[in-house]
């Protein structure tokens, strides 16, 4: 797995407009044809592994919160720990948690312990299905590629850290300039 792309899907919830393009792209990615116009006629129908979820105001803030949710690919993943048949496996520090279909007995313990509710059942009920970060897909996760507002991004923790630090620095610089100006006025 060393040559596979590593990273995480990070979500900027402020940018999500709930268009469900990620769901659409994910379902197409799970299809045999990988083409929307054909995917919608496939038997069985492909299933999206990302879901746009929402909560109305009162719970946290007066604003409606809506966001795509998919597997967080936990380092110490409860689903991997709980699986009695070792059907779930974590690949590398920033790699995906994947399901080995043939080992899954469909007991759904993983569904029970997942803190994010992002493991679902295959249509035939015989195995669980979940996001695998499109780890074999050259262009990276399909949902990220499909997001029109760039609310979804695929980055390593290091990359995100660098970005955040630079943003903090830019904020600081702005603060310094403003401070200087204030000083001059005095």
């Amino acid at each position, binding site marked *: 797995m060393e040559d596979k792309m590593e990273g995480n899907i990070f979500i900027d919830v402020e940018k999500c407009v709930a*268009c*469900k*393009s990620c*769901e*659409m*792209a994910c*379902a*197409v990615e799970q299809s045999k044809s990988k083409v*929307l*116009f054909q*995917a*919608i*006629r496939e038997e069985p*129908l*492909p*299933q*999206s592994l990302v879901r746009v979820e929402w909560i109305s105001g009162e719970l946290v803030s007066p604003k409606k919160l809506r966001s795509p949710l998919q597997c967080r690919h936990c380092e110490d993943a409860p689903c991997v720990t709980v699986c009695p048949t070792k059907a779930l496996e974590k690949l590398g520090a920033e790699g995906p948690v994947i399901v080995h279909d043939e080992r899954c007995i469909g007991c759904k313990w993983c569904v029970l312990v997942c803190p994010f509710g992002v493991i679902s059942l295959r249509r035939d009920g015989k195995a669980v299905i979940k996001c695998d970060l499109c780890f074999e897909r050259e262009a990276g996760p399909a949902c990220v*590629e*499909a997001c*029109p507002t760039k609310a979804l991004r695929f980055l390593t923790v290091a990359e995100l850290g660098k970005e955040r630090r630079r943003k903090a620095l830019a904020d600081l610089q702005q603060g310094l300039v403003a401070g200087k100006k204030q000083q001059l006025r005095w």
Partner: protein
Amino acid sequence: MEVKDRASERSFDPVSQYMLRLAEKQGIETAWDRLEKQQPQCGFGELGLCCRHCNMGPCRIDPFGEGPTKGVCGATADTMVARGLLRAIAAGAAAHSDHGRDIAHTLLLVAEGKGNGYQIKDEAKLRALAEEYGIETKKRTVEEIAFDLAKAIYAEFGKQEGPIQFTRRAPEKRLKLWQKLGIEPRGVDREIVECMHRTHMGVDHDYVNLTLHGLRTSIADGWGGSMIATELSDVLFGTPQPKKAMANLGVLKADEVNIIVHGHEPTLSEMIVAATHDPDLLDRAKGYGAKGINVAGICCTGNEVLMRQGVPIAGNFLQQELAIITGAVEAMVVDVQCIMPALPDLATCYHTKIISTSPKAKTPGATHIEFHEEKAYDIAKEIVRTAVDNYPNRVAAKVNIPDEKMECMVGFSVEAIVAALGGSLTPLIDAIKSGAIKGIAGVVGCNNPTVRQDYSHVNLVKELIKNDVLVVTTGCNAIACAKAGLMRPEAAKEAGKGLKGVCQALGVPPVLHMGSCVDISRILVACAAIAKALGVDISDLPVAGAAPEWMSEKAVSIGAYVVSSGIFTVLGTVPAVLGSANVTKLLTEGAEGVVGGKFAVETDPFKAAQLILSHIMAKRAALGI
């Protein structure tokens, strides 16, 4: 052609490629770049599974069956898709028909003696149309006849009950079928209003019922609004006759004032052309050091003046931006339809003035010189003067006119085809019967940056003529064919043996330019005449339609009326209906049993040609020829 770079991926036309490379070098944004920025496009929209018809929505249906299967009101995928389709047909029919209304208005002004610069150029056609409408023509002046005809046609737009006149041109069997199905249209305004009513929240939810009304509305366009536009334009500006002209951006001139007319209605472009002959304006141009005033067309208004006056055609839909990038256009004069709102922004990089003219169509950033038919010639002179006065602002360093232009023979109205055949359609019918010509394909429609510009147009047409299918064309396909040299009589060499022989005997190209997009009505008239001569319905003929690079709602209406007329039609880009398996099946299978025509979707032009050929061969076999 080898795909080498981004420009050649985007267009099949070497001239467009040259301009696209230039645009890239200059950092200029075009429709192709904006398409890239739109990626990925919304899957719900592509499938027709979103609805914004009421404010309980927006609603979407999950095509994968895990999310909602109905809108808030309960609309299913079938309802949503059929309603969306009906609205597209309504918009397309409205565009063509409102164009037709404007031409009727001009005829009325001429009849009342208020047509500043307009006149009746084809009196014989006026009289023939008047007789069709049951208007007395004997011992009456041209103006009296024109007045009655214009009034009669005006009244038809809002006709509440009973049929509209031009549908009587359809073969008896076709008419009976429309009546039996309840889709014989009344006035087009009424049908369009009913489309909007039926698709309002909580009205028509049955996909078959919705689709049938779509067909009815489209017939009111093809055999109504569009046909009115064509016929009355012929009366006012002359019925097109074969003539030679030039095509592609190379028609722009380095040492003359270049004016591009772009849009659809000949009422404007004809007057602009007339005003460029004005001696004062020519002197004015010369005063600025220009050798003359050159008018060239883009899109269908370009086709109108190309067909009637041999005015060069600068390009089709996707070349409107490229024309400005030549840096040699003093003014792009636009009226209605297919005008990109991107033009004024782009024009700020050059000296080009975008001049909007229609009270119905303003674009921020454009110079608006409002056009009114009552003062047409005076306003046209003002527009031309504005263009001429802009000549000194041309920046020599920014001028890049491509060298390439292509000769073409155009002007094939039905009347011109009949004349070329020696006075009747019989020689053509005989050629079809003998198999020298296997059949006729009407290849029409737009450009669409989601597919390589002109690639499908040119390759589909080439495949068809190679297989002895005579191609009749309008709109942006016609311009693509002209640019590709397929409208030269010498192009007969590229046709199969049978078609080549016929073309060489008559001295015509294997691809006949029949006009603008409203002039698809000419193709209907030709089909009806052939069917009547053979004593069969249009659906029995070895004919087919194709819109390889379509994009507009007008194309949806056209496709619907062509199929309603009984003609098999191949679409080269996918319409937003696949979200409903039932509607898709109705359009691509069921329709054949109902109206005798159906749609197919095939994005590969070579495969599309095969579909058309096998359809034509099957129809020939059924006719026993």
